[in-house]
Protein backbone atom coordinates (compact mmCIF):
# COMPACT_ATOMS: atom_id res chain seq x y z
CA UNK A 1 0.00 0.00 0.00
CA UNK A 2 1.80 3.11 -1.17
CA UNK A 3 -0.27 6.28 -1.48
CA UNK A 4 2.64 8.68 -1.39
CA UNK A 5 3.51 10.74 -4.46
CA UNK A 6 6.64 12.83 -4.93
CA UNK A 7 4.57 15.90 -5.78
CA UNK A 8 1.67 17.33 -7.70
CA UNK A 9 2.96 16.27 -11.14
CA UNK A 10 2.99 12.61 -10.14
CA UNK A 11 -0.30 12.87 -8.29
CA UNK A 12 -2.19 14.26 -11.29
CA UNK A 13 -0.22 12.34 -13.94
CA UNK A 14 -3.16 10.42 -15.38
CA UNK A 15 -5.88 13.07 -15.32
CA UNK A 16 -7.07 13.03 -18.93
CA UNK A 17 -8.70 15.69 -21.08
CA UNK A 18 -12.42 15.76 -20.41
CA UNK A 19 -12.18 14.51 -16.83
CA UNK A 20 -14.67 15.49 -14.13
CA UNK A 21 -12.76 17.04 -11.24
CA UNK A 22 -13.73 18.18 -7.79
CA UNK A 23 -11.54 20.86 -6.28
CA UNK A 24 -11.78 21.71 -2.60
CA UNK A 25 -11.74 25.18 -1.13
CA UNK A 26 -14.01 28.11 -0.40
CA UNK A 27 -12.94 31.24 -2.23
CA UNK A 28 -9.16 31.00 -2.18
CA UNK A 29 -9.17 29.39 1.27
CA UNK A 30 -8.08 25.76 1.39
CA UNK A 31 -7.56 25.34 -2.35
CA UNK A 32 -5.15 22.71 -3.70
CA UNK A 33 -2.59 25.20 -5.01
CA UNK A 34 0.03 22.66 -6.00
CA UNK A 35 -2.32 20.48 -8.02
CA UNK A 36 -3.85 23.47 -9.75
CA UNK A 37 -0.35 24.62 -10.78
CA UNK A 38 0.41 21.15 -12.09
CA UNK A 39 -2.86 21.02 -14.04
CA UNK A 40 -2.04 24.39 -15.55
CA UNK A 41 1.43 23.14 -16.51
CA UNK A 42 0.02 19.89 -17.93
CA UNK A 43 -2.51 21.88 -19.98
CA UNK A 44 -5.15 19.18 -19.67
CA UNK A 45 -8.36 20.52 -21.27
CA UNK A 46 -12.09 20.00 -21.57
CA UNK A 47 -12.43 19.67 -17.81
CA UNK A 48 -15.62 19.75 -15.82
CA UNK A 49 -14.79 21.35 -12.48
CA UNK A 50 -17.01 20.97 -9.44
CA UNK A 51 -15.84 23.60 -7.00
CA UNK A 52 -17.68 26.08 -4.82
CA UNK A 53 -15.94 29.00 -6.55
CA UNK A 54 -13.89 29.59 -9.66
CA UNK A 55 -10.93 31.43 -8.17
CA UNK A 56 -9.85 34.90 -9.26
CA UNK A 57 -8.27 35.91 -12.55
CA UNK A 58 -4.71 35.16 -11.53
CA UNK A 59 -5.11 32.57 -8.76
CA UNK A 60 -6.85 29.30 -8.08
CA UNK A 61 -9.09 27.82 -10.77
CA UNK A 62 -8.82 31.21 -12.49
CA UNK A 63 -5.40 30.08 -13.72
CA UNK A 64 -7.00 27.13 -15.50
CA UNK A 65 -9.75 29.33 -16.92
CA UNK A 66 -7.12 31.68 -18.31
CA UNK A 67 -5.80 28.80 -20.42
CA UNK A 68 -9.30 27.71 -21.38
CA UNK A 69 -8.81 24.30 -19.80
CA UNK A 70 -12.29 24.27 -18.30
CA UNK A 71 -15.34 23.29 -20.34
CA UNK A 72 -17.85 23.46 -17.52
CA UNK A 73 -17.95 24.87 -13.99
CA UNK A 74 -20.36 23.59 -11.36
CA UNK A 75 -20.29 26.10 -8.52
CA UNK A 76 -22.42 28.08 -6.10
CA UNK A 77 -20.71 31.46 -6.54
CA UNK A 78 -18.47 32.63 -9.36
CA UNK A 79 -18.08 36.40 -8.89
CA UNK A 80 -14.80 38.28 -8.80
CA UNK A 81 -13.43 36.82 -12.03
CA UNK A 82 -13.34 38.89 -15.24
CA UNK A 83 -12.01 36.17 -17.54
CA UNK A 84 -14.67 33.79 -16.25
CA UNK A 85 -17.31 36.39 -17.10
CA UNK A 86 -15.89 36.90 -20.58
CA UNK A 87 -15.89 33.16 -21.37
CA UNK A 88 -19.37 32.72 -19.97
CA UNK A 89 -20.86 35.59 -21.97
CA UNK A 90 -19.06 34.44 -25.14
CA UNK A 91 -20.43 30.92 -24.70
CA UNK A 92 -16.98 29.33 -24.38
CA UNK A 93 -17.69 28.21 -20.84
CA UNK A 94 -20.70 26.30 -19.54
CA UNK A 95 -21.79 27.08 -15.98
CA UNK A 96 -24.16 25.30 -13.63
CA UNK A 97 -24.97 27.25 -10.48
CA UNK A 98 -26.30 25.33 -7.51
CA UNK A 99 -26.95 26.28 -3.90
CA UNK A 100 -23.91 25.93 -1.68
CA UNK A 101 -25.49 23.53 0.79
CA UNK A 102 -26.80 21.41 -2.04
CA UNK A 103 -23.31 21.26 -3.54
CA UNK A 104 -21.80 20.23 -0.21
CA UNK A 105 -24.44 17.62 0.49
CA UNK A 106 -24.30 16.12 -3.01
CA UNK A 107 -20.58 15.52 -2.49
CA UNK A 108 -21.18 13.99 0.92
CA UNK A 109 -23.93 11.79 -0.49
CA UNK A 110 -21.44 10.22 -2.90
CA UNK A 111 -19.01 9.55 -0.06
CA UNK A 112 -21.78 7.97 1.97
CA UNK A 113 -23.13 5.82 -0.88
CA UNK A 114 -26.43 7.64 -0.98
CA UNK A 115 -27.62 8.14 -4.58
CA UNK A 116 -29.74 11.19 -3.82
CA UNK A 117 -30.75 13.55 -1.04
CA UNK A 118 -33.65 15.86 -0.29
CA UNK A 119 -33.15 19.56 0.37
CA UNK A 120 -35.55 22.50 0.50
CA UNK A 121 -32.95 24.85 -1.04
CA UNK A 122 -34.24 26.23 -4.31
CA UNK A 123 -37.87 25.10 -4.00
CA UNK A 124 -40.05 27.55 -5.91
CA UNK A 125 -37.06 29.05 -7.74
CA UNK A 126 -35.49 28.43 -11.13
CA UNK A 127 -33.16 25.95 -9.45
CA UNK A 128 -36.17 23.64 -9.10
CA UNK A 129 -36.84 23.58 -12.84
CA UNK A 130 -37.06 20.03 -14.08
CA UNK A 131 -36.40 18.59 -10.65
CA UNK A 132 -38.58 16.27 -8.64
CA UNK A 133 -40.27 17.97 -5.70
CA UNK A 134 -41.57 15.99 -2.78
CA UNK A 135 -43.43 17.02 0.33
CA UNK A 136 -42.47 15.72 3.76
CA UNK A 137 -44.29 16.93 6.88
CA UNK A 138 -45.87 19.79 4.98
CA UNK A 139 -42.62 21.14 3.55
CA UNK A 140 -41.39 20.80 -0.02
CA UNK A 141 -37.96 19.38 -0.88
CA UNK A 142 -36.04 18.89 -4.10
CA UNK A 143 -34.52 15.54 -4.97
CA UNK A 144 -30.85 16.17 -5.76
CA UNK A 145 -28.44 13.51 -6.98
CA UNK A 146 -25.05 12.56 -5.56
CA UNK A 147 -22.06 14.08 -7.30
CA UNK A 148 -19.18 11.88 -8.26
CA UNK A 149 -15.91 12.90 -9.80
CA UNK A 150 -13.20 11.03 -11.68
CA UNK A 151 -10.70 12.81 -9.47
CA UNK A 152 -11.24 14.74 -6.25
CA UNK A 153 -8.38 17.09 -5.45
CA UNK A 154 -8.22 18.38 -1.91
CA UNK A 155 -5.92 20.36 0.33
CA UNK A 156 -5.36 19.49 3.98
CA UNK A 157 -3.21 20.87 6.76
CA UNK A 158 -1.66 17.59 7.91
CA UNK A 159 -1.75 14.13 6.48
CA UNK A 160 -0.09 10.79 7.13
CA UNK A 161 1.22 8.02 4.94
CA UNK A 162 -2.06 6.09 5.31
CA UNK A 163 -3.93 9.02 3.74
CA UNK A 164 -5.52 10.32 6.94
CA UNK A 165 -6.18 14.06 6.77
CA UNK A 166 -6.64 16.95 9.19
CA UNK A 167 -7.76 20.39 8.03
CA UNK A 168 -7.18 23.77 9.65
CA UNK A 169 -9.86 26.31 10.52
CA UNK A 170 -12.19 27.36 7.70
CA UNK A 171 -9.80 25.85 5.15
CA UNK A 172 -11.76 22.66 5.88
CA UNK A 173 -14.94 23.71 4.01
CA UNK A 174 -15.59 21.40 1.02
CA UNK A 175 -12.33 19.45 1.26
CA UNK A 176 -13.47 16.52 3.44
CA UNK A 177 -16.69 16.18 1.43
CA UNK A 178 -14.97 16.09 -1.93
CA UNK A 179 -12.29 13.78 -0.54
CA UNK A 180 -15.06 11.22 -0.01
CA UNK A 181 -16.55 11.64 -3.48
CA UNK A 182 -13.65 11.00 -5.84
CA UNK A 183 -13.19 7.75 -7.71
CA UNK A 184 -9.57 8.71 -7.20
CA UNK A 185 -8.86 11.21 -4.43
CA UNK A 186 -5.64 13.21 -4.42
CA UNK A 187 -4.67 15.08 -1.25
CA UNK A 188 -1.97 17.70 -0.97
CA UNK A 189 -0.95 18.56 2.57
CA UNK A 190 1.20 21.16 4.21
CA UNK A 191 2.82 18.54 6.38
CA UNK A 192 3.06 14.81 5.66
CA UNK A 193 3.90 12.66 8.67
CA UNK A 194 4.46 8.92 9.22
CA UNK A 195 1.44 6.78 10.15
CA UNK A 196 0.88 6.92 13.87
CA UNK A 197 1.82 10.57 14.42
CA UNK A 198 -1.71 11.93 14.07
CA UNK A 199 -4.20 11.38 16.88
CA UNK A 200 -6.71 8.82 15.54
CA UNK A 201 -9.51 10.68 17.35
CA UNK A 202 -8.76 13.87 15.44
CA UNK A 203 -8.78 12.63 11.85
CA UNK A 204 -11.23 14.53 9.64
CA UNK A 205 -10.86 12.34 6.55
CA UNK A 206 -10.02 8.67 7.17
CA UNK A 207 -7.38 7.33 4.81
CA UNK A 208 -9.77 4.89 3.14
CA UNK A 209 -11.06 7.80 1.08
CA UNK A 210 -7.61 8.98 -0.05
CA UNK A 211 -5.70 7.29 -2.86
CA UNK A 212 -2.72 9.61 -3.35
CA UNK A 213 -1.04 12.04 -0.99
CA UNK A 214 1.94 14.35 -1.12
CA UNK A 215 3.47 17.19 0.82
CA UNK A 216 2.89 20.40 -1.11
CA UNK A 217 5.28 23.30 -1.28
CA UNK A 218 5.45 27.07 -1.69
CA UNK A 219 1.92 27.75 -0.50
CA UNK A 220 0.93 31.31 -1.28
CA UNK A 221 -2.44 31.21 0.54
CA UNK A 222 -3.64 34.40 -0.99
CA UNK A 223 -6.19 36.44 0.97
CA UNK A 224 -9.17 37.62 -1.05
CA UNK A 225 -10.61 40.19 1.35
CA UNK A 226 -8.04 41.34 3.83
CA UNK A 227 -10.01 42.98 6.64
CA UNK A 228 -8.59 44.20 9.91
CA UNK A 229 -9.85 46.08 12.95
CA UNK A 230 -9.78 49.78 12.34
CA UNK A 231 -7.52 51.57 14.77
CA UNK A 232 -9.46 53.34 17.46
Amino acid at each position, binding site marked *: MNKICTGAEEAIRDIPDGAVLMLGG*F*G*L*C*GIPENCISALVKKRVTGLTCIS*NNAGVDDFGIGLMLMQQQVKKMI*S*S*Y*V*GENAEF*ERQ*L*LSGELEVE*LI*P*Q*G*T*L*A*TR*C*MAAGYGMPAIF*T*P*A*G*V*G*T*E*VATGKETRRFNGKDYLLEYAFEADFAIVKA*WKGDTMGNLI*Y*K*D*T*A*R*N*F*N*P*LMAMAGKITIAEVEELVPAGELDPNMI*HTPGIYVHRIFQGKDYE*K*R*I*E*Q*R*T*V*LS*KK
Partner: protein
Amino acid sequence: MAIDKNQIAQRIARELKDGYYVNLGIGIPTLVANYIPAGINVVLQSENGLLGMGPFPEAGKEDPDLINAGKQTITTIPGSSFFDSAMSFGMIRAGKVDLTVLGAMEVSDTGDIANWKIPGKMVKGMGGAMDLVASAKNIIVAMMHTNPKGESKLLPACSLPLTGVRCVKKVLTDLALMDITDEGFLLLERAPGVSVDEIQAKTAGRLVVRGEIPEMVFG
Protein backbone atom coordinates in the same frame (compact mmCIF):
# COMPACT_ATOMS: atom_id res chain seq x y z
CA MET B 1 -35.10 61.02 8.30
CA ALA B 2 -34.06 57.69 6.91
CA ILE B 3 -31.72 55.74 9.16
CA ASP B 4 -28.24 54.76 7.97
CA LYS B 5 -26.83 51.29 7.66
CA ASN B 6 -25.29 51.39 11.11
CA GLN B 7 -28.65 52.28 12.60
CA ILE B 8 -30.26 49.47 10.64
CA ALA B 9 -27.71 47.11 12.15
CA GLN B 10 -28.28 48.61 15.59
CA ARG B 11 -32.05 48.13 15.35
CA ILE B 12 -31.70 44.54 14.17
CA ALA B 13 -29.35 43.80 17.05
CA ARG B 14 -32.26 44.44 19.42
CA GLU B 15 -33.97 41.35 17.99
CA LEU B 16 -31.18 39.18 19.38
CA LYS B 17 -31.84 37.07 22.44
CA ASP B 18 -29.35 35.53 24.81
CA GLY B 19 -28.12 32.17 23.55
CA TYR B 20 -29.09 32.77 19.94
CA TYR B 21 -27.12 31.22 17.13
CA VAL B 22 -27.15 33.77 14.34
CA ASN B 23 -26.12 33.82 10.69
CA LEU B 24 -25.35 37.29 9.37
CA GLY B 25 -25.23 37.78 5.61
CA ILE B 26 -22.78 39.90 3.66
CA GLY B 27 -23.15 43.72 3.74
CA ILE B 28 -25.35 45.51 6.27
CA PRO B 29 -26.13 42.30 8.21
CA THR B 30 -22.42 41.89 9.00
CA LEU B 31 -22.57 45.19 10.90
CA VAL B 32 -25.09 43.74 13.36
CA ALA B 33 -22.16 42.08 15.14
CA ASN B 34 -20.99 45.53 16.23
CA TYR B 35 -24.21 46.25 18.15
CA ILE B 36 -24.89 43.13 20.19
CA PRO B 37 -26.49 44.40 23.43
CA ALA B 38 -24.60 44.07 26.68
CA GLY B 39 -25.45 40.98 28.69
CA ILE B 40 -26.51 39.05 25.64
CA ASN B 41 -24.37 36.25 24.33
CA VAL B 42 -24.92 35.21 20.76
CA VAL B 43 -22.87 32.83 18.66
CA LEU B 44 -22.28 33.84 15.07
CA GLN B 45 -22.34 31.13 12.43
CA SER B 46 -20.39 31.52 9.24
CA GLU B 47 -21.69 29.07 6.68
CA ASN B 48 -18.25 28.26 5.32
CA GLY B 49 -17.78 26.21 8.49
CA LEU B 50 -17.52 28.12 11.75
CA LEU B 51 -19.52 28.68 14.91
CA GLY B 52 -18.19 31.44 17.12
CA MET B 53 -16.98 34.07 14.69
CA GLY B 54 -15.17 36.96 16.35
CA PRO B 55 -14.20 40.43 15.13
CA PHE B 56 -11.76 41.21 12.32
CA PRO B 57 -8.13 40.55 13.28
CA GLU B 58 -5.66 43.24 14.24
CA ALA B 59 -3.50 44.35 11.34
CA GLY B 60 -0.72 41.82 10.82
CA LYS B 61 -2.67 38.99 12.43
CA GLU B 62 -4.73 37.99 9.39
CA ASP B 63 -4.81 34.22 8.81
CA PRO B 64 -5.61 33.10 5.25
CA ASP B 65 -7.10 29.87 6.66
CA LEU B 66 -9.61 31.80 8.73
CA ILE B 67 -12.24 33.68 6.73
CA ASN B 68 -15.97 34.27 6.83
CA ALA B 69 -18.59 33.63 4.15
CA GLY B 70 -17.74 37.01 2.63
CA LYS B 71 -14.12 35.83 2.31
CA GLN B 72 -13.01 38.42 4.87
CA THR B 73 -10.28 37.61 7.36
CA ILE B 74 -11.76 37.13 10.83
CA THR B 75 -11.02 35.74 14.28
CA THR B 76 -12.79 33.28 16.58
CA ILE B 77 -14.16 33.57 20.10
CA PRO B 78 -13.40 31.08 22.89
CA GLY B 79 -15.62 28.01 22.44
CA SER B 80 -15.72 28.21 18.67
CA SER B 81 -15.78 25.15 16.42
CA PHE B 82 -14.92 24.40 12.80
CA PHE B 83 -16.74 21.91 10.60
CA ASP B 84 -17.21 21.08 6.94
CA SER B 85 -19.71 22.70 4.60
CA ALA B 86 -22.14 19.77 4.73
CA MET B 87 -22.46 19.97 8.49
CA SER B 88 -22.67 23.75 8.26
CA PHE B 89 -25.63 23.63 5.94
CA GLY B 90 -26.90 20.62 7.84
CA MET B 91 -27.34 22.67 11.00
CA ILE B 92 -28.92 25.44 8.93
CA ARG B 93 -31.30 22.99 7.24
CA ALA B 94 -32.19 21.40 10.57
CA GLY B 95 -33.29 24.77 11.93
CA LYS B 96 -30.60 24.97 14.59
CA VAL B 97 -29.75 28.56 13.66
CA ASP B 98 -32.14 30.86 15.55
CA LEU B 99 -31.91 33.93 13.36
CA THR B 100 -30.72 34.71 9.85
CA VAL B 101 -30.19 38.29 8.71
CA LEU B 102 -29.61 38.99 5.04
CA GLY B 103 -29.88 41.62 2.37
CA ALA B 104 -32.26 41.56 -0.56
CA MET B 105 -33.00 43.21 -3.89
CA GLU B 106 -36.74 42.62 -3.57
CA VAL B 107 -39.15 41.24 -0.98
CA SER B 108 -42.78 40.44 -1.67
CA ASP B 109 -45.66 41.02 0.73
CA THR B 110 -46.00 37.25 1.06
CA GLY B 111 -42.38 36.86 2.18
CA ASP B 112 -40.75 35.84 -1.10
CA ILE B 113 -37.22 37.10 -1.52
CA ALA B 114 -35.05 37.85 -4.56
CA ASN B 115 -31.41 38.59 -3.94
CA TRP B 116 -29.19 36.59 -6.25
CA LYS B 117 -29.75 37.32 -9.91
CA ILE B 118 -30.55 40.15 -12.28
CA PRO B 119 -31.36 38.74 -15.71
CA GLY B 120 -29.21 40.27 -18.42
CA LYS B 121 -26.50 41.16 -15.94
CA MET B 122 -23.58 38.93 -15.01
CA VAL B 123 -24.81 36.17 -12.76
CA LYS B 124 -22.52 35.47 -9.82
CA GLY B 125 -24.46 32.67 -8.22
CA MET B 126 -26.62 32.16 -5.16
CA GLY B 127 -23.87 30.96 -2.84
CA GLY B 128 -25.54 29.82 0.36
CA ALA B 129 -28.51 32.18 0.15
CA MET B 130 -31.04 29.65 -1.15
CA ASP B 131 -30.11 27.16 1.54
CA LEU B 132 -30.39 29.82 4.22
CA VAL B 133 -33.78 31.17 3.19
CA ALA B 134 -35.25 27.72 2.59
CA SER B 135 -34.47 26.54 6.09
CA ALA B 136 -34.14 29.41 8.54
CA LYS B 137 -36.79 29.54 11.22
CA ASN B 138 -36.55 33.28 11.45
CA ILE B 139 -35.33 35.51 8.64
CA ILE B 140 -34.95 39.27 8.86
CA VAL B 141 -34.18 41.13 5.67
CA ALA B 142 -32.13 44.31 6.01
CA MET B 143 -32.18 46.56 2.93
CA MET B 144 -32.97 49.99 1.52
CA HIS B 145 -36.66 50.68 1.07
CA THR B 146 -36.19 51.72 -2.54
CA ASN B 147 -33.61 51.00 -5.23
CA PRO B 148 -31.27 53.68 -6.60
CA LYS B 149 -33.94 54.63 -9.14
CA GLY B 150 -36.35 55.33 -6.28
CA GLU B 151 -38.52 52.28 -7.03
CA SER B 152 -39.95 50.30 -4.16
CA LYS B 153 -38.19 47.08 -3.23
CA LEU B 154 -41.28 45.96 -1.24
CA LEU B 155 -43.52 44.49 -3.88
CA PRO B 156 -46.78 42.60 -4.36
CA ALA B 157 -44.66 40.00 -6.13
CA CYS B 158 -40.94 39.90 -6.87
CA SER B 159 -40.00 40.75 -10.44
CA LEU B 160 -36.51 39.26 -10.18
CA PRO B 161 -35.77 35.52 -10.04
CA LEU B 162 -36.60 34.22 -6.57
CA THR B 163 -34.14 33.06 -3.95
CA GLY B 164 -36.88 31.62 -1.77
CA VAL B 165 -40.62 31.50 -1.34
CA ARG B 166 -42.68 32.65 1.66
CA CYS B 167 -39.70 32.66 3.98
CA VAL B 168 -39.02 36.23 5.16
CA LYS B 169 -40.54 37.02 8.57
CA LYS B 170 -39.45 40.63 9.09
CA VAL B 171 -38.06 43.46 6.97
CA LEU B 172 -36.05 46.41 8.22
CA THR B 173 -35.31 49.21 5.78
CA ASP B 174 -33.90 52.70 6.11
CA LEU B 175 -37.52 53.83 6.57
CA ALA B 176 -39.44 51.17 8.47
CA LEU B 177 -39.61 47.91 10.39
CA MET B 178 -42.30 45.54 9.21
CA ASP B 179 -43.55 42.04 9.97
CA ILE B 180 -44.70 39.91 7.08
CA THR B 181 -48.21 38.67 7.77
CA ASP B 182 -51.01 37.07 5.79
CA GLU B 183 -52.27 40.59 5.08
CA GLY B 184 -48.92 41.88 3.81
CA PHE B 185 -46.27 44.15 5.36
CA LEU B 186 -47.47 45.04 8.85
CA LEU B 187 -45.84 48.34 9.81
CA LEU B 188 -44.26 48.12 13.27
CA GLU B 189 -41.92 51.10 13.55
CA ARG B 190 -40.98 54.18 11.55
CA ALA B 191 -37.51 55.65 11.15
CA PRO B 192 -37.30 58.87 13.20
CA GLY B 193 -39.15 61.65 11.37
CA VAL B 194 -40.35 59.45 8.52
CA SER B 195 -44.10 59.66 8.02
CA VAL B 196 -46.48 56.78 7.47
CA ASP B 197 -47.47 58.48 4.23
CA GLU B 198 -43.91 58.38 2.95
CA ILE B 199 -43.58 54.68 3.85
CA GLN B 200 -46.92 54.01 2.19
CA ALA B 201 -45.85 55.89 -0.93
CA LYS B 202 -42.64 53.92 -1.19
CA THR B 203 -44.18 50.50 -0.54
CA ALA B 204 -45.59 48.88 -3.66
CA GLY B 205 -46.81 45.77 -1.88
CA ARG B 206 -49.72 45.64 0.57
CA LEU B 207 -48.89 47.72 3.66
CA VAL B 208 -50.96 47.33 6.79
CA VAL B 209 -51.01 50.34 9.12
CA ARG B 210 -52.83 49.71 12.35
CA GLY B 211 -53.12 52.41 14.99
CA GLU B 212 -50.28 54.69 16.01
CA ILE B 213 -46.86 53.65 14.62
CA PRO B 214 -44.00 54.42 17.00
CA GLU B 215 -40.69 55.84 15.89
CA MET B 216 -37.48 53.89 16.36
CA VAL B 217 -35.35 55.23 19.16
CA PHE B 218 -31.57 55.22 18.95
CA GLY B 219 -29.49 55.85 22.05
